[in-house]
């Protein structure tokens, strides 16, 4: 059971109040992209056992989309942050580094 805090309305709730929206920080590859780029964007997803970044939506609350950083193995939530960024903010990365030294996810570390 996850407990998440919405970074917009500040409400902390258990996961039934939220809805998971899959992998975070995807870059779209549609027209003009190579087959390999499109394949990766459309069908391949990060599936780490450990540090992971996701999009979530506060469906039974303020309705806002946001980002969450958590561990898929322990269910620990490192933090939630704004949807309006294309990579995790420094304080989130620092928090993860303190707990999971040497972590990496895609190109982020």
């Amino acid at each position: 059971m996850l407990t998440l805090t919405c970074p917009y309305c500040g409400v902390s709730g258990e996961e039934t109040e939220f809805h998971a929206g899959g992998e975070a920080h995807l870059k779209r590859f549609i027209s003009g992209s190579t087959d390999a780029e499109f394949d990766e964007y459309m069908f391949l997803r990060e599936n780490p056992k450990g540090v992971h970044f996701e999009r979530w939506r506060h469906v039974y609350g303020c309705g806002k989309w946001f980002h969450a950083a958590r561990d898929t193995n322990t269910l620990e939530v490192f933090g939630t942050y704004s949807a309006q960024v294309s990579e995790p903010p420094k304080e989130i990365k620092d928090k993860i580094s303190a707990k999971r030294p040497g972590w990496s996810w895609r190109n982020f570390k």
Partner: protein
Amino acid sequence: MTGGFQPYDALMSLFREFAALPVAFDWAEKDSKTTRGHPRQRRGIRPDMKRYSAFAIAREALRHHTGWERAWRSPEPKKKYDAIIVGAGGHGLATAYYLGKNYGIKNVAILEKGWLGGGNTGRNTTIIRSNYLQDPSAAIYEKARSLYETMSQDLNYNVMFSPRGVMMLAQTQHEIRGYKRTAHANKLQGVATEFISPQRVKELVPIINIDGPRYPVLGALWQPRGGTARHDAVAWGYARACSAMGMDVIQQCEVTGVRTEGGKVIGVDTTKGAIDCDKLGLVVAGHSGVLAEKAGFRLPIESLALQALVSEPIKPCMNVVVMANTVHGYMSQSDKGEMVIGGGTDGFNNYTQRGSFHHIEETVRALNETFPIISRLKMLRQWGGIVDMTGDRSPLLSKTPVEGIFVNCGWGTGGFKAIPGSGWAMAELMAKGHSPLTDEFSMFRFREGRFIDESVAAGVAH
């Protein structure tokens, strides 16, 4: 014991004398005089493995059960094998078994990081069916179901296959249309299913409430030769048969790295040292993505926890398997009397083998409406397994970007039923380079736009 004449003891000692004669029971195992060779050799099983039989039980009873052997050996890894299978669950063991049985490839190791059958093979609800919509799915699942019919005899191990019948309830108009379509497709595929009326459902399952109120039963897709089997026994039976062929089942041996040279696999690093191989089969379900990363490629898979639970044992009350997909719950009664209940999949990636608590409530709430008699049952145990989900909810049985590495994964929420067919097909793929059963299940099918879309037909809400 008091003194005097003990007819039982006298009889037993007489039997013991008789059993001590090496030839005494040999006639029992020479079941055919018309074919040459020992029957166990004809089955491809090493003659020094002791067969299980009624006579073996009698023989052991007469010598206080001192003659039973371990079902499989526990060897140290060799330096090199022709093929290594990673994952000693049902699919991995079945792959190894058919590599040996069908293709004579017996210099094989099956590596398991935990204990044999301790992953999803030991965590599922043991349902076996093949009522799929798409032709490639029906082919491999029906192959599997038909192999289950004779598995106990093939393996000389009782897997308790019980073709008691599986029904998938239609509780909305949409489901009626969907299941009628599947029944038509199954007819063309040669899979025996039919769409049955609510009255027939009630006859087959007297404890069901077909009247709703929320979701009345409007009919069902019925597969009379679907059913259940003892899931642990499937893994144990395959392991014993593999070991008897001379294969090494190595537990507590985690693969920590995959070694390649010039785009070709040459071996694996493990917690028990480096082991070389010519071919490598990755058959690790939930951890497929983790292992593929070690081998240097990505898989179109995400891992999630799926749960199940069982009730306290009660008297026999339901002798078929019922799946209710709209309300999301499925239930059967085990031979021990427990009601075995399939729960929901988590909505987000995780490797916890637990699952979120609220899915239990959702599942039990749905089943309470459909089966009012279970409302006061106590639930005994709950557990989770990590399922490997693909985008089209169909498995991957495929070559990979690395020569010599093959994957068998992506069975998602429905792998147990596929074990023998999956192993049969994967063995052919590994031995011959292609198999008619796996051709459609390539890991490259997404890029090529050749989905095998079972996300609505697979039976459970994903």
